[in-house]
Each structure stands twice: as C-alpha cells, then as structure tokens.
C-alpha cells in the first residue's frame, strides 16, 4: 500500500509540471499587458513603465519568467498579486476554508440523496420511482447552475425570507454552527444538484451490476429476505466504485463552484479567480489554478487509496 501511494505521488509530479506549463502558457500568450494592472492606463503619464516592468520581472523573456515562477512554486512561493499586493498563497489560504467547506457539504448532500435514489432505481428498475429519479437527475444536469441559484435566492431569501442571500456567515465573533448552516445550504444544494445525476446513475448501474452477480443469486436462493440481500450483500459492494467517482468529479465541482460562489457572494477561491481573471492578476490566476489542480490530484489520490483500503480484492504494487 505504501509503495502504491509513493508511486501515485511520483506519477503526480509530471502531471503538475504539465499543468504549470499549460497555465503559464495560456496566460503569457495573452494579448494586453499586465503592466497596466499597476498603473491606471489613464494616469500612466508620470510613471516610468520600464522601471516597474523590471521590478516585477516582466521585462524578461517568457522562458526565463517561467523558470523564475517555477522556482518560486518549489519554494511554496506562489508570487505576489499584481493588484492586491498580497502573497498569492496568503490570498488562497484566506479563501480555502470557504471553498473546501462548500464542496464538502455539497458532496455530502449529493451522496445522501444520490445513493438511496440510485439504489431504489436499480432495485425497482423501470418503476415510477426509477423514472422519477432519472428524470430529476437529468433535470439537475440540464439547468444552468447560476440560474438555479438565482431562483433559489428569490424563493428562499426574498419571498420566504428563511435564508440569507449571500455570504458565509453573520456571526463573525465565533463559529456559530446554525449561522454557517443557514448560509451554506443554498449554494451547497445548487452545487450538489448539478453533480447528483452522475452519482445517481453511477450508483444505479453499479447496483445493477452487483445484483446480476452469482453471489446475490445464491443469497436469494438461500431464502434470505430481499432486504438483507440488498443491504447486506449488494449495497456494500455496489458502493465501492462510487468512491473513485468522487475523484473524477472533483474538477467539475471546482468548476461549478466558480459560478455558484459568484451568485451567492461566497468568499471562496472560485470568486477570487473570476475577479483576478478580469483584472489580469496573473500571479493569482496561475496560483489558484495550480493550487486547485493540486487539490484535485490529492482528492483523486485519496479516493483511490480509500478504494484500495475498502476493497480487499484489489492489491496494489
């Protein structure tokens, strides 16, 4: 197992290298000079642009800039925001908790709903419930999440007044669970609704697969009740592959968070990347994209390891 983890980590290194290259290239091939982030182009009259370019290393050729940046990354120095003049890592750190908590809650919500729904649809194949769940899940992936989010705000914040429309908390003095919960419910549900479909479909087909297996047939023929067959034998085995699904879904959840955080004014990384993109705050864009890719890779690594732990049939070496 240890060997396997080491191997996976080693495999991640070239991945990360490619990712840094891609992000760096996209941003540095872009037209428009980042230098005008330091100075309002309208009042640039008195400022010596060459001096500032030199100060931020923007007068160097592109490959030198890449290696300077990469060297920084290796020392956990993600650079300094052009716009806010804060270290990028500090900016990410300030928003990391918000983003991760939003994702975790949404993943939990989606599993809580998708797993039972998937099982019901598999066990009662082609029943009304099956149709209902699969239609609902298709509706989930077919609604633009920002639109759905706005609708929920209108309903729950404006009309009913039950939940706050934006932000992460009201109580800034201490960690107030109910306060946090009230703020997180709407964005997490919107995020969950979008990815629920794939989880549900996956659970359904995984369950169908298991039910066809011989040992289930054996269990049934032993005269065990359907409940025990489903929950004791089938459920646990069907649940396993869904763990790996989590790893695959992470980039999508991160991407979805960009829109959801913007709609709900959530103080997370998604909103930061939108803002920094529009202001061409290159160090922040590169830092955030690299950082979220690292999180995704760690996420799928954890998922694979969990899978290995949970399934004794699989041996890694």
């Amino acid at each position: 197992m240890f060997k396997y983890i080491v191997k996976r980590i080693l495999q991640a290194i070239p991945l990360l290298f490619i990712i840094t290259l891609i992000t760096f290239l996209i941003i540095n091939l872009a037209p428009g000079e980042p230098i005008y982030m330091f100075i309002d182009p309208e009042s640039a009259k008195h400022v010596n642009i060459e001096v500032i370019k030199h100060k931020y290393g923007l007068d160097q050729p592109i490959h030198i800039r890449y290696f300077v940046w990469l060297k920084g990354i290796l020392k956990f120095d993600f650079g300094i925001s052009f716009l806010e003049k804060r270290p990028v890592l500090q900016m990410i750190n300030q928003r990391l908790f918000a983003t991760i908590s939003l994702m975790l809650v949404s993943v939990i919500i989606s599993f809580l709903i998708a797993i039972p729904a998937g099982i019901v649809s598999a066990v009662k194949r082609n029943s009304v419930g099956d149709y209902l769940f699969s239609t609902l899940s298709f509706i989930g992936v077919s609604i633009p999440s920002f639109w759905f989010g706005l609708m929920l705000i209108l309903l729950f914040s404006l009309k009913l007044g039950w939940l706050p429309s934006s932000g992460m908390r009201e109580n800034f003095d201490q960690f107030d669970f109910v306060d946090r919960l009230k703020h997180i419910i709407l964005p997490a549900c919107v995020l969950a609704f979008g990815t629920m479909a794939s989880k549900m479909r996956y659970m359904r087909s995984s369950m169908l697969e298991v039910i066809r297996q011989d040992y289930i047939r054996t269990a049934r023929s032993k005269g065990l009740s359907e409940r025990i067959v489903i929950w004791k034998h089938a459920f646990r085995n069907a649940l396993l592959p869904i763990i790996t699904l989590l790893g695959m879904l992470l980039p999508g959840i991160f991407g979805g968070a960009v829109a959801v955080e913007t709609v709900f004014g959530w103080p997370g990384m998604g909103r930061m990347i939108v803002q920094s993109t529009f202001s061409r705050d290159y160090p922040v864009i590169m830092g955030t994209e690299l950082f979220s890719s690292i999180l995704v890779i760690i996420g799928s690594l954890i998922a694979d390891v969990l899978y290995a732990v949970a399934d004794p049939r699989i041996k890694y070496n």
Partner: protein
Amino acid sequence: MAQVNLNLQNQEEVNIAESFEYSDTFSKKLKIFWRRFRKHKLAVVGLIILIILYTSAIFAPFIAPYDPNGTPDDLLFTDKAPTFKPYTDFNMNGEEVVFKPNYFGRDELGRDVFSRCLYAGRISLTVGFVSVGIYVLIGIIWGAIAGYYGGIVDSIMMRIVDAIMSMPTMMLLITILAVFKPNLYNVMIVIGLTGWTGVARYVRAEFLSLKKRDFVEAARCIGCSNARIIFKHILPNAMAPVIVAATMGIAGAILTESTLSFFGLGVQPPTASWGNMLTNAQELNTMIQSPWKAFYPGFLIFITVLSFNFVGDGLRDALDPKLKQ
C-alpha cells in the same frame, strides 16, 4: 458539467463496440439500433424536440416576425409582456404603428424576444455542434494514436490528458476567454480545446482492446498501413461510445456557453445566444417585473440540454451490448 457527463459513461461503455457483429450490414445494424432506441420513450421525445428546435433555427428568417436586433421602425425602448394579438403603439420615430404580436414579449430595448430566441437558437445550437465537433476530432486522433501505438507514446499522451482532466475546466475556460477575446469563434474553439480529454480516453480504451483482435491482425498481415488500420478498420468499431459522449457533450457545451455568458465571456451582444439572453436574469428587476425576458431563453437551454441528454441516454441503451434485443 460536460465533464461529469462524460465520466459517467467511462466504465459502462468500454465494451459497447462489441454489441454488433462486425459482419452485419449497415442497414441491419441500423434496424436493430432503431428498434432498441425506440424503446426509450424519453429519448424519442427528446429527438422530436431537437428536430423541431433545429428546424426552427434553420428556418428562423422565415418564422421570426421581427428582426432579432430590432429595426428603427419597430423598436420601442421598453419591455413588454407577451401578447398574442397585434396592437398599436408608438415606435422610435414617434409614429403610431400596428405591431405584430410578441409571443415571448419584448426585451428592455423593445426587441422581440421570440425572434431573438429563434436566431439565438442558431448560435447556441451551432456552438454545441461545432465545439463538440472540434473535441471529438481531437479526441479521436489523440486517443487513436495513443491506443494504437501504446508504450511510451501512450504514457506521454495520456499524462497530458490526465493533466488537463485535473484542471477545473470552468476556471480554465474563464481564464482563456478573458485573456483572449470572447466571441463566437473563440468560445467554440476554447470549449472544443478543453473538452476532448474524455473522448480521447474512450477511444484509447477501445483501441487498446480492438488492436489485439483478429481482424486487425489480419489487416496488418495483408500489409495495410498504420493509418489505414487506424481509420478504416479500428475506428469505425470504436465509434459507439464516442457518439454517446458527443451527444451528451453537445448538451454540456450549450450549458457551458450559458455559464460563460453569465460571466460576460460567452457569445458577445448584440449577437444573441440563449446564454447571453439569459444574463438578463442577473437583474433583480427582470426576475420580478419582466420574467419573460429571462424565462424563454432559460427554458430553451433547459429543454435542449435535457433532450440531448435523453437522446444520449437512449443511444447508450441502444448501443449497449448487455441488453439483449
């Protein structure tokens, strides 16, 4: 969300290509396919809806009662709730004119929402098709090469696929479109360039299993070139999951364009797309006082994406070898 859709088929469809016997004639395959597809009621409904949508988009100039961008003679500069009867009002020049009905109402510039939706449909449906076309093409070539040659070529190519797959797509799209100009072509190209990884994976998987098969060996023995084997012999048999992925990919691409429009990075006004028409929904006033401006484009996106997903699901069932006829 496109990625999510693609991932989900990953495991189920590895063996789909085997569902048909290689000796079957095309028309026989089609017959079997159609018989299976028909069983999926929702997919059939989706297909009908899509046919209607595409027809009306193609014939938009004949159907639309107004110019989608408004002409000076019919602009009112105020929004107007949907009407189904002709009415008289003052136009921009202060002349009293009889107007044709506005089935979906007028937007805040007084443009006819129905006509705009029709023309926007052309754009949105094109975005879906072209961007998926781009990524299917890249994906097939990439996956075919990686799968067919294997070894070090495969590992390097698949590492790149893995790298792109671990980058949050929406962040990537926003960055690229913000630094390059967002316009119709760039939107299609960028969605295409970021979406191909899923297709590449299926195609590679198919190739890995197909290249060991007898008929490939046979082709190689009679001296076929690599390119010929890839494109003539293996590829046609690896197309099933690609077709399903592409169908659902179109749904994803339309949705992605609307999300990009939400950030102002989709197709740019005054060219209408369903996505950028929906951005009106960001104004609270629209939601409360004139919901029709945002409802119809939103509904059209929803129904199109839903139909594509249903059709994709139907295709999957129809091409699935595990379900016996």
